[in-house]
């Protein structure tokens, strides 16, 4: 089937309560409902899923790799932003 009839969708899966949705991959589907089905059938076959998000790939706004230095380089020298100086109590669970 043509790309127009079966556009690309990005799939995000939340594995457990308390975790965030993570990008799992992409699928082709005719529309949102079928995209959910395809995502379920392709990416949650082994009990990975509690919740699925799908979004049209064309709707995702991405940063330009050319801007990499401007976007990300300045944070490299700011070690104090990392929470590595704290001990996380076990009770906190997933961070």
């Amino acid at each position, binding site marked *: 089937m043509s790309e127009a009839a079966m556009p690309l969708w990005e799939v995000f899966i939340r594995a457990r309560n308390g975790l965030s949705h993570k990008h799992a991959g992409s*699928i082709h*589907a*005719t*529309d949102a*409902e*079928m995209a959910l*089905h*395809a995502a379920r059938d*392709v990416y949650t*076959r082994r009990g990975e899923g509690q919740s699925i998000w799908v979004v049209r790939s064309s709707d995702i706004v991405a940063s330009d790799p050319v801007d990499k230095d401007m976007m990300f380089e300045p944070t490299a020298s700011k070690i104090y932003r990392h929470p590595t100086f704290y001990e996380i109590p076990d009770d906190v669970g997933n961070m």
Partner: protein
Amino acid sequence: MSGTCEPMMTSNQTLFSYVLRLADDHLILSQRLGEWCGEAPTLEEDLALANIALDLIGQARALYAYAGQVEGKGRDEDQLAFMRYERDYQNLLITEQPNGDFAHTIVRQFFISAYMDPFWRRMEGSKDDMLAAIAAKASKEVTYHLRHTSEWVIRLGDGTRESHERMVEALDDLMMFTGELFEMDAVAQEMLQSGVGVDASDLKAEWQHTVQTILQEATLELPKAGHMQTGGRMGRHSEHLGHILSELQYMQRSFPGLTW
């Protein structure tokens, strides 16, 4: 089933027969869907059909294992699934119909799912604990099968002119196999009366409602019910079952007892 004429069935034999035919429905349909593996129109649908096939094989395994236990002759699920002859299989004729094009596969699955969905829900109330437990698991699975095939019916029916025409053809070809779904023979009657089985004839109105609602949305119509094919429950099959079995049984016939 030995094939010999038995004047009176004991209740256990009836239960065995009832569970076995349900198992056969699921095994044969699963084998048919499995033929799509690697051949489906898209990768996504390849997995979707395989997932449905795996749900069905899981249901078939549970049913065969239980049938073997009820029979009490030491036959396990493999022996029941692989080591019987064509006339011993009691599956519904619709389950053995060829995949055809994608429209035929979807309509076949849609017809059966719209039937099995209320069937399993009612079976959850069976007096037979094992059947009730199998039903509880299966009904969640088949609800998804119904949802998935319904969405495809809508998109293919209300899609392009070609997809619409193919759906019309598939509905015409498969309609004659739907009468058998609602038949109640002596085995089914006895199981119903003992509180174990489901009244299949009573599912017809719900099936028609489900099917017609979706078809309407799909700009399709359910063909008029004409002559209905029957015979699967008595081991009288279409020419297709033998070919399915030759492929399905090949490994166990060549290497009896093989495990892997």
